[in-house]
Structures are given as structure tokens and as C-alpha cells.
């Protein structure tokens, strides 16, 4: 492959509420068995990109744990590898990453020392599968300076949390608006870019000189008239998990057979760190229906229309409906939970019950004594 990969995984998002209190967004568990960064890393690996850097900052430890070995994504090779770049103090700078472009600027040496001609930049919060070879072929065919991977959203979707894109008939981007208040555009940026490496270095240096730090605002939007910026339309499933509602919806999407088939059964696979949990155990009296259950769970109660992550325990007579239980949640006997996201490692004993509304998913976490 003629590209290197860079995963921007340093950001936080207030709209994820309590869920990112102890972890980076890129380390958010998704679809029972994965973390959100797995989708980017698997797509890079499956596109035969051998060298990938992950830029981390906010709550980076959660991500370090997940990326403690690169062998799960098959990056641990003599050629290439998986690199973790948190901000670092150098002779020239002691700043945190002040934005996406700044995080690239602070790792400019890495970009300079590579010999691959192209760079794929992607965020750590997207849920998708993509062959970057197709994007690169498009990029070269269009003789683009920057290619932005975009997704046509359905008519009823709320696009106000995305960057919306307007193109001409030749896919060249004419307008780029971040988080529009009102728009009739349906084409949104997935935050995935392909750029020629030297071009990227040049633009990043230019931005840094002007004390500009944001890749979207200070490069894409600013240069849209001068540079050839093209939109590559991806066809498969794509979503990102930048708000609690989007996170809930993305997980619930995996209850649909077509989404499961696309991610779980069609080539290529999505990889993740292997945890060696035992099979899930269904005891006498349990009722499970319409749910996605990960490995190592023990279920005694009722689970309906929900997603259970790894190693959850559901007590006798407990009822879980329309909810998401992250890793290692312990639900004691008789607890009722509806329309909630239960944070990882929680222990819930309160018999009062928890319920959110479908329009406002409640995030709960419990630190009661487990045994």
C-alpha cells in the first residue's frame, strides 16, 4: 500500500456526557465486542496499510490499554507498525495538542520520515468498513489535493452535528459547513481524508505559521476555493458516536439483521483485542429476546431489545429493556432498567428501577459493592 494511516483519537466531546468521563471516545465499546477505534484500525489493516499512528490526548490511558499489543489488527510486523503519539514536551514546544492540525504538526517528523506518498487520516469514532484503496484510486483519478470521504444521509436524518458538503457534478467540493444550524444538504463528511504526504506537510506547516490549529476550519474550509478538494461517496454503513443519542442508535443498529450481516459475516472482518471470555451462560428462568449478547455473560433474568457487552451479569428477576450495558456490568436480582446506558464496571442494586425516555437516553453508573 502506498499510504500511511493516522487516527485522530485525542478528542473529547461534551455531548457524550458521563460516558467519556473515564475513557476516550475512540475507546468507547461498540456493538458488544468492539471498541470504536477497531473500525478504523481494521479498515486500515484490511486495506493493507502497514504503518499507522494513533494520536491520543484526552483520557489516553483507556486507549493505551486497548492498543497494548498491535497484533490483534496484524500491525506488529517488521515493516511498519502501530505507533501511539500522545503530546510530548520537546525542546521547541510544551503544548498540548491544540487542535487536529496542531496534533499533526507536532508529529511532523513522523510524516517527514515516511516514504509512502499518501496519508489516510481518519477519526477514532466512526463505525464503518472501508477499503482505502478505492478512495486512493479515486483521489489519484481526480488529481485531487484532498479527498474527503462523505456519506449521503437519509432525508430524515439530523445532520446538524456533522460537517455538510456541497459538490459540483464532478464531485468537487464547493461548500463545506461545520455543524450547520439549517441546511438542506444531505452529504456529510465522515472526517476521513486522503492527502498526498508532501501536500499535507506543506499545508500543516502553513497553518502552524499562522497559529491555526484545526484541520477542518483552517485547512478544508479555508482552502476549498484554492485546492482541488473532492468528495468520495461511501456506500456502506457509516455512523459516528459523537453524542449519547448517536452512540445509543449505533449500537441499536446492530440489532438489525442487515447491519449484523454487513459487519459480522461479510468480508472483511472487524478485529479487536481478544479477551478469552468463556461462552455466555443462560440459566434456568432467563428470557432473552431480540438482543445482542457478547461473551462471558451470565443471564438469569429478562433481557429484551438490548445490547449486552462482555461479562455482564443479570440477576434473577432483573429486567433489562431497550438498554445498553457496557462491559462487566453487574445487575442484582430484581433490578429494572429501561432505555438506559449502563456504564462499564457498574454494580446496580437499587430496586427503585431506572428508566430513560426514548428521546432522552439515561446514562447510569453504579459503584455499589458487588459481593
Amino acid at each position, binding site marked *: 500500500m502506498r499510504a500511511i494511516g493516522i487516527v485522530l483519537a485525542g478528542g473529547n466531546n461534551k455531548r457524550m456526557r458521563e460516558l467519556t468521563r473515564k475513557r476516550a471516545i475512540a475507546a468507547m465499546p461498540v*456493538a*458488544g*465486542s*468492539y471498541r470504536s477505534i*477497531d473500525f478504523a484500525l481494521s479498515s486500515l489493516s484490511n486495506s493493507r496499510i502497514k504503518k499507522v499512528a494513533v494520536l491520543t490526548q484526552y483520557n489516553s490511558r483507556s486507549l493505551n490499554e486497548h492498543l497494548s499489543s498491535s*497484533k*490483534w489488527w496484524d500491525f506488529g510486523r517488521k515493516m511498519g507498525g502501530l505507533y501511539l503519539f500522545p503530546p510530548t514536551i520537546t525542546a521547541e514546544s510544551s503544548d498540548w495538542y491544540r487542535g487536529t492540525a496542531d496534533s499533526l504538526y507536532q508529529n511532523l517528523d513522523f510524516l517527514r520520515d515516511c516514504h509512502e506518498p499518501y496519508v489516510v487520516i481518519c477519526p477514532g469514532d466512526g463505525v464503518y468498513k472501508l477499503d482505502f484503496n478505492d478512495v486512493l484510486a479515486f483521489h489519484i483519478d481526480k488529481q485531487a489535493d484532498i479527498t474527503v470521504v462523505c456519506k449521503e444521509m437519509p432525508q430524515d436524518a439530523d445532520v446538524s452535528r456533522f460537517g455538510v458538503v456541497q459538490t459540483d457534478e464532478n464531485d468537487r467540493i464547493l461548500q463545506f459547513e461545520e455543524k450547520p444550524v439549517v441546511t438542506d444538504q444531505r452529504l456529510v463528511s465522515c472526517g476521513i481524508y486522503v492527502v498526498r504526504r508532501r501536500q499535507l506537510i506543506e499545508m500543516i506547516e502553513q497553518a502552524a505559521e499562522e497559529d491555526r490549529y484545526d484541520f477542518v476550519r483552517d485547512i478544508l474550509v479555508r482552502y476549498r476555493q484554492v485546492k482541488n478538494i473532492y468528495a468520495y461517496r461511501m456506500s456502506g454503513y457509516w455512523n459516528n458516536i459523537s453524542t449519547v443519542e448517536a452512540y445509543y442508535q449505533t449500537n441499536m443498529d446492530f*440489532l438489525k439483521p442487515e447491519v*449484523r450481516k454487513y*459487519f*459480522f459475516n461479510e468480508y472483511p*472482518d*472487524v*478485529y*479487536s*483485542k*481478544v479477551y*478469552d471470555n*468463556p*461462552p*455466555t*451462560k*443462560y*440459566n*434456568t*428462568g*432467563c*428470557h*432473552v*429476546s*431480540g*438482543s*445482542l*449478547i*457478547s*461473551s*462471558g455473560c*451470565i443471564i438469569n433474568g429478562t*433481557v429484551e431489545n438490548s*445490547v*449486552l457487552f462482555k461479562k455482564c451479569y443479570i440477576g434473577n428477576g432483573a429486567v433489562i429493556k431497550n438498554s445498553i450495558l457496557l462491559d462487566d456490568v453487574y445487575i442484582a436480582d430484581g433490578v429494572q432498567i429501561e432505555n438506559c446506558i449502563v456504564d462499564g464496571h457498574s454494580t446496580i442494586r437499587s430496586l427503585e428501577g431506572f428508566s430513560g425516555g426514548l428521546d432522552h437516553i439515561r446514562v447510569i453508573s453504579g459503584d455499589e459493592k458487588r459481593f
Partner: protein
Amino acid sequence: MVRKEMIAMLLAGGQGSRLGVLTHNVAKPAVAFGGKYRIIDFPLSNCINSGVDTVGVLTQYEPLKLNAHIGVGISWDLDRNVGGVMVLPPHEKSESSSWYSGTANAIYQNIDYMESYHPEYVLILSGDHIYKMDYEVMLGYHKAKGADVTIATMAVPWEEAPRFGIMVTDEDSRITEFQEKPAQPKSNLASMGIYIFSWNALKEALTTLKDVPGCDFGKHVIPYCHDKGEKIYSYEFSGYWKDVGTLGSYWEANMELVDLVPVFNLYEEYWKIYTKSSAMPPQYVAPSAHIERSIVAEGCEVEGCVEHSVIGARCVIEEGAVVRDSILMEDCHIGKGAVVEKAILADGVRVGEGSVLGVGEYAESRYDKKVYVFDLVTVGEGSVIPSGVKVGKNTAIWGETAPEDYPDGQLPSGGFIIKGGEQA
């Protein structure tokens, strides 16, 4: 120089013929167990959990699945710069070439491999038992006793003792006498087939006995060491240990895992059992499904009913299908409305829509009276059972069967269809 205090040699070459069609083209250690594991995962996980990071795996019978499973040992953290896991098949030599003719002969043929690690102790294991054991503790015992050989033993019920190799010990646990499957046992301490040898004692015995045909640890090496007056001790083990050598004991050991609190607990964080599993997706339980008293591995899609069963990874159980008291290994597919009762289905078995397995009354097997005596429907790897047929109890099926193979649409109890293993 390379040096390892103790290395393990894992005997994984046996066929395990008493597992019938399950081992027709798979070595017994590679047979699936407990939903996502294979039998060899237990000794391999015990090794790494005990700090034994050099394991030679001796293979001979149908090694393909076993080799693919072990790979370079990543799953057990046995991919090491020095040591790690190595598969040791029989090989041609300049002087003479032969298959592994017995357990001790297999070890003897790999004496160079062992010598290259300059071990002080060698742990001999077999690849067909389900248990968790800390070999490091056993080694400590071996050292404390100043033993030449230590044999792990287990107290078995007296009435079962005649089935085992029995060790008679003195008050210091030193073994004074052996009885191989005795009619009148003098003790109820059975050998578990796990030995620690001090290297010199092992090397000397193997070299002396190298010309004994079918040289075996239980039959030749241990008696030889005993006659020579070497110090042989019994290390009594009291945890869970299960020989899954017959279809009945295999089925039972699997079913014990679905008990409310299983005797053999896989859910403890301590002493994990590792297996080859690329990251697999979660399982989906459809609104039409009903699952109770079962364990279900990753990647399954369940639309039907599963009761008191062990379901392997990536199985699909379609709507209206019923799986009861059964074991499904990986990648099985049960068609709409099919019923599977008291059956063992090996990897990749497909059962057509509306077929019924395990009906009628028990009848003596016409295929192999010794192997098939457990009332179970046993289906070999990759078999296909067409739609709408009835299969009786105590039956064996292997291969892609078609409706013509079932006269009147059924296979009566005790019957068999063996079509597998034919070259296309």
C-alpha cells in the same frame, strides 16, 4: 546458551477412536469442547499459567486441525523468542524412520529437541483431559521430595479403579507398586498420565528402552525406573479432572458446564483457559428465540429454541428449530423447524429443515458396539443431513448425506451412514 528449568512434552498424536465419527478426521486433542475450546487448550493453558513456556506438541494422527489451531502459539502467549510452542511430527531420519510407536517412543524420537533447551525437568502431558492444574506446584513437590519421577494421581471411586493404572504408595507417598487395570486394586490412586521426570532419569530410561517395540510410559518406562530403584512419588491432585475419552464422558463433561454453578468453572478470572479465537462478534438472540440452561459461544444467531445444550461459535439455529440436550461444535447450521435431541454435532454440520434427530427407542449400534452405547446421535465434521428426515437414537453419520441415504426418510436407531473421507 539456552536453558529452561522445565519444558513440557504434550502427547497429542492419538486418534481417540472411542469418540467414533468425531475423530474420523480430527485428532482427539483438536475436538471442540465447552462451546469455544478444543481439548488441547486445557493442557496448553495450564502450561502458560504455570509458567512453562516451552512446549513440544507431538502430533501424528490427522494433525491438520491441530496444527491450524496451534499455529505459532499466539493464543496461549506461547509465541516466544526462546522456547514457545513447537509442533513435532514424526520425521524421516538418515538411519531409520518410523512412526511414533508408543508414548515413550514418541518422546525418545525428539530427544534432540529436549536436549536443545538443557532442561533440568521434563513434564509429560497428554492432550485429552479437561482440568486446571498448576504444574509449578507439582514441580515444587518433585524437588522437595528429591524425586526422580513424580506421577500425578487422583483418588477414584474403588469400583472404578479397575479401569485405571493404579499406584500403590507408602506413607511418604513414594510409589511401591503399580497395577495396570487390576481386577483386585490395592489402592484407589489412579495415574492421570502427567509425569515430571528429572532430565537424567528420563534420558537414561528412554535411551535404554529405545528398542522396545511400542515403548509406553505406563507399561515400560515407569516400571523400568521402579525396578532400577529410582525414587518415584505420587502427587495427589484433588481438583476437577475429566477424561473425555468416550462419547458418554464427553457429553457429560460438556453438560456439566451448563449447571447453575458448574463444578468446573470457566468464569473465574484466575487461571483462564485460552483458545484460538480471532475477535468474534457477539451473539444475536432473536425475538422468536428461547434459550435456557445452555452456554452459547460468540457469533451465534439463535432464532429457535435451545435447552440444556452447549453451542459452539458461529452456529445458526433457525426459527422453529429445537436443540435439546445436545452439543454443537463450531459453524453448525440447524434449519427451520428441525429438532436435535441428545446429539453431538461436530464442526460445520448442517441439518436440513424439518429433520428430526434422536427419535424412537434405543437400539444396539450396528456400526460399532463398543463406541456407540450412549443413546446419542453422533455426526462427524462437515456432515450434511437433508431436509425432512428422521434419525433414530444411538446413530452415527459422517459425510454429505442425501435423501436417498434415508430409506423411507429415516435412519432407524442403531443405524449409521458413513460417506465421509471419500476422495472427490
